[in-house]
């Protein structure tokens, strides 16, 4: 039995090393293959800096927008009962369940030159597709569910009694949210924001569809990685990839820290439920 356990542990770890650890190490090895000088040059090239700027810009717009959306949606969904709640949750989850390519395509079909609003936009000299607004829209689309998904399961398990108590004590809606609800979900909210940010900065499929292939205008960091990689500039590609990888590793560390903090409250694992498990009534998980 001990032998079997040792063997299986070894097999499991070897598998994880092959599929997770080696690719992770390869990123850094490739990035530094030609030394630190080449690395620094690659991440500070003007194209890379442009890409970093656009990536940060789209995250800076998408994350606060989806934060406000997430808070409002979680409040409406968990504190009130109304017809179509389950459907609403499914729709909020939609960006998670479809290919990111579709997330880009829908905006091309709506705002692109041949899209429904394309002629009108062209007449008013507004460009969305193959331009920065398109990147931002695609980023908002793919990151829409993150905050809601972290908040809803948690807020659903907590009853509304505390909010009702605060309401009876004369607190306004904002005061109830700010002083009663928020302190109970702050770690989940923070976690949702971290995931949302990481995803906003790393989005590739949707961004690549709306960005088109015009270099320099609409290139985010992941798109820049793709471009230089296809130009066989491996060091530059992996150097820029390390920036995104470090962001991902920081996300994982923060997740571990927040998980430990939240172990007691009903926390939902990172990837366990693609879906918000909101169809169930509060308290049924006990």
């Amino acid at each position, binding site marked *: 039995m001990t032998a079997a356990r040792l063997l299986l542990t070894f097999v499991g770890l070897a598998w994880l090393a092959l599929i997770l650890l080696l690719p992770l190490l390869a990123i850094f090895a490739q990035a530094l293959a030609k030394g630190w000088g080449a690395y620094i040059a690659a991440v500070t090239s003007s194209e890379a800096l442009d890409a970093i700027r656009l990536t940060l810009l789209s995250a800076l717009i998408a994350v606060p927008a989806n934060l406000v959306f997430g808070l409002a949606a979680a409040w409406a969904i968990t504190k009130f009962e109304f017809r179509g709640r389950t459907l609403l949750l499914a729709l909020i989850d939609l960006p998670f369940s479809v290919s990111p390519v579709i997330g880009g395509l829908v905006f091309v079909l709506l705002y692109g030159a041949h899209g429904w609003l394309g002629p009108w936009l062209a007449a008013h000299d507004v460009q969305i597709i193959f331009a920065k607004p398109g990147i931002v829209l695609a980023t908002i689309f793919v990151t829409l569910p993150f905050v809601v998904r972290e908040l809803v399961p948690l807020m659903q398990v907590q*009853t509304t*009694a*505390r909010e*009702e*108590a*605060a*309401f*009876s*004590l*004369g*607190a*306004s809606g904002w*005061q109830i949210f700010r*002083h*009663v609800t928020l*302190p*109970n979900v702050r770690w989940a909210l923070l976690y949702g924001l971290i995931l949302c940010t990481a995803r906003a900065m790393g989005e590739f499929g949707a961004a690549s569809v709306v960005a088109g292939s015009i270099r320099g205008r609409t290139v985010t960091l992941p798109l820049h990685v793709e471009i230089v990689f296809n130009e066989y500039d491996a060091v530059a590609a992996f150097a820029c990839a390390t920036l995104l990888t470090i962001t991902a590793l920081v996300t994982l560390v923060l997740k571990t820290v927040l998980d430990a903090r939240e172990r007691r409250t009903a926390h939902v694992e990172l990837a366990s439920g693609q879906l918000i498990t909101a169809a169930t009534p509060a308290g049924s998980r006990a």
Partner: protein
Amino acid sequence: MSIAIEDVSKHFGAFAALDRVRLHVASGELLALLGPSGSGKTTLLRILAGLERPDADGGRVRMHGTDVTGATPAERRVGLVFQHYALFEHLTVAGNVAFGLRMRRGRARVPRREIDARVQRLLDLVQLSPLADRYPSQLSGGQRQRVGLARALAIEPRVLLLDEPFGALDAQVRRDLRRWLKELHAELGITSVFVTHDQEEALELATRVVVMHQGRVQQVGTPAEVYEQPANAFVYEFLGSSNVIDGRASDRVLHIDGARYPLDVAASGDVRTFVRPHDLEIVPEANGGSTFPVRVRDVQLVGPTARVLVEREVGGGVIEAHLTRAELAGLSLREGLRVHARARSFKVYAGGIQP
């Protein structure tokens, strides 16, 4: 502060949680809403609190003569106490009590010094001053519920509403807190309504008891009235243990296994007779026309009381009699012994029992 509930109805989908409830709460009362789960008592309390609205054409709620049906809890100035306390876990005891005052803005803003002073007074009142800086998670259940009460009282409510306030507590703590709440109510004189499913709690604590069932008020009265004069079979059965004995009624006489009792209600045919176990007498010999034969099945001694289970020889079925130890000593009962039973007092309800 008096409260008038006028024909209040509340439906959840097709389910009628409240069906045209009329009720008057007098100023300074300590009123119990008593009933099994699903009887509508919690819904009624939530409507009083302003946390739930009656159906669109479902009646009015008035406080001190003013229609408050559409008013928020804060506008009604009601203090709420919750079964599971609903304390703000991230605030200290003092922070919880101060919450309502701190939330006041603009002209209603309360100066910090005054908040502190009032919190101190309330903590003294609920005997929690030494724990002012603790967090709710560091308190016992009884202490938490006292914080909940102090928090509700801090806004100087006109009415105090308590939802199963002792429901989450141990038996001993429950009894202590019950007594304490009664004293507190006597001291403050604030109009209070509490929900409970525990008849003992309602009878011990309340000045008046409202018994509810299936969204309707079954009876309103003092604890003595509802216990001694239950208005119907449901109230009878809900307010204490009872034997149900089937008999026949004709010409204002009740027949049970050959025994005859005079009836004061007009009933005929098969009737169900309700007898409390302590109203069932056990005698060694048949006596006049009011005893019926039974066989002893079991005798259990529970503290000062003897519970005697007997089976009716004619009609069948086991019924229970509660005897004092002295009564038991004079009988020398043993299993299988044939004795006779007599109902000292009983109830027969015309129209039968509601399901």
